[in-house]
Every structure is written in C-alpha cells, then in structure tokens.
C-alpha cells in the first residue's frame, strides 16, 4: 500500500509481514490458543464461574428467607402461621426449623442417583476418547439417572404441595421452590444436552474427534451435581 513497499515489493524490515511466522499449517491444522486451552473449554469454565455467583445468590436468599420464616413462625405472626396447616406450624415452632418438612432418606437416595450420574458421565467421556462405541450407553445412562432425579424432585414438590407448602403461601415456600427449581431447571437443561449427544452418538457422529464436546457437557453436568451437593447439605441437612 505504501510507496516504499510497492516499489521494491518487499516488506520493510520492521513490518509485520516481514516478521510473520509461517503459520500455513496453523490455518488448516490445529489452532494456536494463548493458554493452550480450547476457546470452548475456557468459555465453559467462565460460564460456570458466573453460575457460581448465580447459585451463591440463590442459596443466600434461601438461607435468609428460611431464617426469617422460622423467626416469624416462632414469634407467632398470624399472617405467616395461617399459610400452612396448624400441626405443621406447630412442629416448625417446636423444632425452630423447617426440618419436619423433609424426607431425608428419600432425598438422600435421589441425591445419590444424581451423584452416580457424574460417574457415568466420566465413563461416557472415556468411551468417547477411546472411541469404543460405548459412549451411547453411558450417555443414555447419565441422562436416565438425571431424569430419575428430576422425577424424584417432581414427586417431592407434589408431596410438599399436598402438605401445604405452596409457592405463594409464605417466604419459605417461595425460597425453597425457587432454589431447588432453579437447580432442577439446570439439570433439565443438562438432560437435553445429553439427549442431543445420545442422538449424535447413535448416528455415529460422536467419535473421538468430538471428545471435547462430551467433556464440555460433562463439565456442566459435574458442576450441576456439585451444586446439588451444596444445596442438599444446606437445605436438607443443616437444621
């Protein structure tokens, strides 16, 4: 473009053309990234970092709301106590917590199932890397285990609703359903991704060259599991 360069048709010594690396291979083969980590994986980690704050805020909201609810029940606020059956309120007031609501063994079982799905997810990734054709089995198993967890959550929500805990009734109901519901929505999103992978796997399109795709879904899935461990501990186990 410049006169000098045009005249002798050679790049000036200091110009970027003169110092460019010969990256012809690069253009077709592997892509250089500054961190040596693929963009997609980096992006997934960043997204999960953001999700941490999302769940952090939701869990804080739940903790505060539950504490306020219990305080009001103990204090005997008639506007709060009238939102649930009297005997349940009585139990809450006596235990000074919402623990009587929970069926710990049931939720422990469904939590265990969700945790196991992390194992099958790892196996699915391994099978994809090894390209041994078993990834469809493990991916399906992961999606299935996730679905069982969701079914358990739906059952639990129904049971709570019958016992008198509604979304709009009181603070605890709003906070409980919102927190666990947000997590459930995340699991559901994960199941949809897994099903897409299962579909690809059955069409033979999920070979070892796409192992990273499985890994990315796996990262998300493990994150959702870890969040559940936190939620289970905070919501169900700590009085």
């Amino acid at each position, binding site marked *: *473009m*410049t006169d*000098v*360069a045009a005249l002798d048709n050679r790049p*000036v010594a*200091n*110009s*970027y*053309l003169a*110092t*460019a*690396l010969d*990256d012809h291979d690069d*253009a*077709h*083969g*592997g*892509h250089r*990234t*500054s*961190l040596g*980590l*693929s*963009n*997609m994986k*980096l*992006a997934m980690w*960043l997204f999960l970092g*953001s*999700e941490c*704050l*999302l769940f*952090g*805020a*939701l869990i804080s*909201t739940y903790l*505060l*709301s539950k504490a*306020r*609810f219990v305080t*009001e029940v103990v204090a005997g*606020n008639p506007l*709060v106590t009238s*939102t649930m059956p009297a005997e349940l309120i009585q139990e809450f007031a006596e235990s000074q917590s919402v623990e009587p609501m929970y069926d710990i063994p049931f939720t422990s079982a469904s939590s265990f199932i969700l945790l196991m799905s992390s194992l099958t997810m790892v196996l699915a990734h391994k099978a994809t890397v090894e390209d041994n054709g078993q990834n469809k089995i493990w991916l399906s198993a992961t999606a299935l285990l996730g679905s069982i967890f969701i079914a358990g959550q739906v059952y639990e929500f129904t049971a709570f609703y019958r016992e008198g805990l509604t*979304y*709009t*009734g*009181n*603070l605890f*109901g*709003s*906070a409980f359903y*919102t927190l666990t519901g947000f997590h459930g929505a995340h699991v559901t999103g994960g199941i949809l*991704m897994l099903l897409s992978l299962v579909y690809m796997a059955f069409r033979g399109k999920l070979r070892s*060259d796409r192992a*990273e*795709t499985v890994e*990315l*879904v796996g990262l*998300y899935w493990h994150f959702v599991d870890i969040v559940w461990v936190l939620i289970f501990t905070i919501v169900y186990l700590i009085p």
Partner: protein
Amino acid sequence: MAIIEEPLALPEGTSTKVERPLGAYTRPRNPAGLVNWLTTVDHKKIGIMYGTAALFFLVIGGVAALLIRIQLAVPDSQFLSADAYNQIFTMHGTVMIFLVVMPVGAAFANYLLPLQVGARDVAFPRINAFSFWIFFFGGLMLNTSWFLGGGADGGWFNYAPNNGIAYSPTPGIDFWNIGLLIVGIGSLTGSVNLITTVLNMRAPGMSMMKVPVFTWMTLVTQFLLLLAIPVLTVAQVLLSTDRLFGANFFNVEQGADPLLWQHLFWIFGHPEVYLMILPAFGIVSEVIPTFARKPIFGYPFMVFSGIAIGFMGFGVWAHHMFVAGIGPLSVTAFTLATMFIAVPTGVKILNWLATLWGGRLTLNTPMLFAIALVTQFTIGGLSGVSHSLAAHDTQQTDTYYIVAHFHYVLFGGAFFGFVAGMYFWWPKAFGYKLNDKIGKVHFWTMVVGFNLTFGPQHILGLQGMPRRMHTYADAQGFNLWNAVSTFGSFILGIGTLMVLFNAAVSYRNWRAAARPDVGPDPWDSRSLEWSIQSPTPEHNFDVDPVVTQLDDFWHRKYQKDENGTLRQVHTGDEIAQPGNGEGVHLPAPSYWPIMLAFSIPILGYGLIFNLWLIVPAVILMLVALYGWALEPADDLDIDDHHDHDHELETV
C-alpha cells in the same frame, strides 16, 4: 475460533454429503445493505452497531435528563406530574447506565479487543452478534414501557418493597425487570466471549504483560460483568416472581427483609460502577501516551491497580447502605474497604499525570477529552472519598451531592473518556478524522456545560436537597443553584449533539475531497490496531502480527541509532500491513443470532401481559437454537475448506 477440528478437504468435483440441516434454507451469503448488518458476525460491525444503538438510547436518556432539569428549574414547578417525573428519572438512570454507558464500553471492546491482541475476530463471532441483538431488543423492550402502561418508577436501584406490585401496580417495573434480564444475557455472553478472546487469542509473543492497557481494563470489566450480572439476575428473578406470580421474597408481612434486595442489587451494583469507568480508564491510557509521545508511566502499576479496583469492587457494596441500618460493625468494615479503594484509583490518576510530565503534548480533541477525564474524574473521586466516610455519608447520601458525584464519575469520567476514544479511533473505523476545530468547540461546550450542570449539584446536596424530588419549595432555598444547573444542562445538551454534527460535517468534507486515505497510523500511535489499514479491513490482519514487547508497533517505528538516540526509522505507513486478505478465511454471517435474540423479548411480553405469547416465543427460540446448533460457523458452499465448527456454541 475452532473448537472441534474437522478438516474436510474436498477434492474438486467430488460430491460429498454436506450437512444442510434445513433443506432449502440457505444462509445469508455476501449480503449487502441491511441484511448484511442484521446478519453480520464481524466484530467491527457489531462494535459500530453497539455504538449506534447506544447513541439512539442516549437521545432517549438525554431528553429525559432535560425534562428533569426543566422540572427542577424553578420551585413548585407544575411542568411534570409527580408520576411522570418519577418515571422519567428512573428511566433516565436505567437507560443511561444499562443502554448507554455499558454498550458504549461494549462498542469499544468489540471493535478494539481483537485488533489490540492481533486476532481476526472474537472467539465466538455468532455469540457476539447474539450479544448485541439481545442487548438491543432488550433495550427496545424496556423502552416500549413508555407506551404500555408507563415506565418503571422505582428509581434505578428500585428498592424493595417500593418495587412491589402493591406500591407500583403499573407494569413499568416488570418491564424494568425483564428488559434488564434480557440485556443482562447479552452482557454475560459478551463477557465470556471477550474474556476468551483476550486470554486465548493473543498474537504470537504477546504475553499478558504486553497487552495494551485498554485491553487489560476491558478484560477486568468483562470479569466484573461475568461475576456481577448473575447476582442482578437473581434479584430480578426474585422480584419478577413476586410481582408476576405472587411469591413472597420481599413481602414484609410474611417476614421478608427488604434489605435482601439492597444487598443483592449492590453486590451487582458496585462492580457495575467500576465496569462502567474502567473502559474509559483504558481509553485514556491509550490516548495520553500517544499524544504525549511517551510510554504510559508505570504500566504494571496501571494493570495491577485496575485488577485491584476490580477485586475491591466486589467488597464494598454495602457503602451504598450506610444509612440502611446494617449495624455499626458492618458500616465500619465497609467504610474502611471503601476508603482504600481510593488508593488504586489514585495511582491511575497520578500515573496519567506522570505520563504528561515531560511529554511533548499534542493538544487535539482526543487528548483534550482525555485530560478532561483525568481532572473531572478526580473531582468525582474526591467527592467519593468524602462519602466513603460513613459518618459524612449520613449527611450526604441520597442528596444531590451524590447525584453530582456520580455524574462527575460517569459523565466527566466514563463519557468524556468515550468521546476521547471516539475521536481517537474514528479514523481507524471510518477512514477519516473528525474535524479538530469543531472538536475543540465540542470539547469546551461540553466541559463548560457539564460543570455548570453538575458543579452546582454538589452545593445543592450539601445544602440539604435530597435526590429524586419531583419538586421543592421556595422556602427551602434551592432556587439559585437549580436554575444554574438547568441552564448548564442545555449547554451540555448542545455539546452532546455536537458529536453528531461533527460526524456529519467531517464526513461531508471527506467525501467532497474525494475520500482521501487517512493512512493506517494517523496519530503515530502505539498499539496493533494502527498497524493495519484504515478503515480496518474485514479480515483485520493479513498475517498474525508477532509481538516482542509492549507497544510493539511503536518500537518498530522508533529505534535507537548508533549514538543511542531514539529516532524514527519507519513511519507507520511503511510498516503497516497492506490489507491483502487473500486466503484469509472468515466466519460467515448468520440469521440465527438475531432470530434467537428476537424470540426472548416476546417471551418477556408474554410474562407481563399474556402467558400464551410464550408459546410462539418458545417455538421461535427452539427453531433458532437448533438452526444455530446445526449450522456450521462457515458457509460450506463458499469455502473450499472449513475448520470452524461452532456446533456447541448454543450449549
């Protein structure tokens, strides 16, 4: 760029089964005009669209500002009703923050980050387009509330429980919630995209400590967005469920604590303040060294003070709540944390001054605006220190002193920085310089108008005038300075409009002069974006620039001669890349980002007005999502090879 490598070398004439997901559907191909802009995934065009959209929203926010000032010009004014005033000041703040200052930052980030790190585009070009369109549609949706029952009327921080359905029964706050949730999606995807670009797509040899300060500051900004937006999202989801579905998060009679909203909002809101100012800090850190012909003083200190501001920004949120009753212990802790955030900010200001020290200054328009940022922001910073002291804050908070403070920070700081950046990078983006004479008139009009508008508000605040008052009484003694402030605001309004005037005149003169080439490096600048032609070629770089040091481009132009004296050995024009894009492969445009972005506000209208609207919205969304997922990033019909597969971008 590519995630899943799938080399697909197709021999000429061989019929290969190419995935064509929607049969007859073809993607936009080398389109022109409007379709080009709607479907582009080029980070430069997206940057320009961010800027244009922000200018559009600036007009809305600016008109709101002038209405506020007209109302307050005289005591007991009847110009606006209390209701109208409350909507206008709420929307003024919301629009200016979320739809003007943040997107202008995004405009500069989009245009410049890939150029400054030597990349051909951002990491995920289609997500980039999506980020813009969802911001734009979300912003439009927010502003349709003016015509659909009234704007939000709770103030930009919208405290509970005044934001509840009982106290604000019009849908304005629902629009505020959902509109900003939608805008927030764009910020989040944008931040992931830009962080990945900076961290992962730097030119060979460009280590993090060789990255220009603007890129660094924007990187910090994007991290703040990444971590702050989800907290706002939670707050707005809670409020939306309260308002739309009868949840109880802010229902005091059920025992809710209204301070929950304040904590959530300000955990977002304070980083928000920094993420608005940091890009402008980055801009002046580019402008000042260029026109002082010196490197930035203390580059590592500039970088680390920016990082420190980012970190500390997450630990000071409760200084917005000094009088909210959080207890003296919390107040003490947050006072101390807030006071010390002045240290890294001060470091920046002193380093800029040190860069001016001994420099050879060219006082053209961008430089003038950059110096204006340094001085005007200092005023805002000092008033900030004064109310970081909680005891002072009990007198100053929620008065016009605060209004003056954050306008000095956001207008005198961020906005002046943006104008400096606009004058500075205009030739890079459009191929001609903005007129410097008009620019200087523009500069003085804005500086005078700005100080006349907001300077008196310091006095009003200390004289006891609270903010958000639709009127005041004659006997309260606020008449004089309110009148001055209103007078100043009109000068400022004229000054702001001169941006458009200058752009129009400069363009006309350039066209009349047969579009002379401004050259790749009109300012004798320092960073990589000046090593390519102006306006920037579509493919950015002909070859990956190899970087050996900070300000690499400048050091290729200036080297020491045998006597050890620094001499110019090349002009920028000589060593710039010629702009030959042959063989460069670019991601193809796509319809899906805009379609996906369009579906989401429909969902929002459904939530507010009629849940049935959700059905078409979800159908549109699914179509767009699957279309996107199944569409390779590159157009197979055009290219002889493709190495970019963004199949998982939607995941």
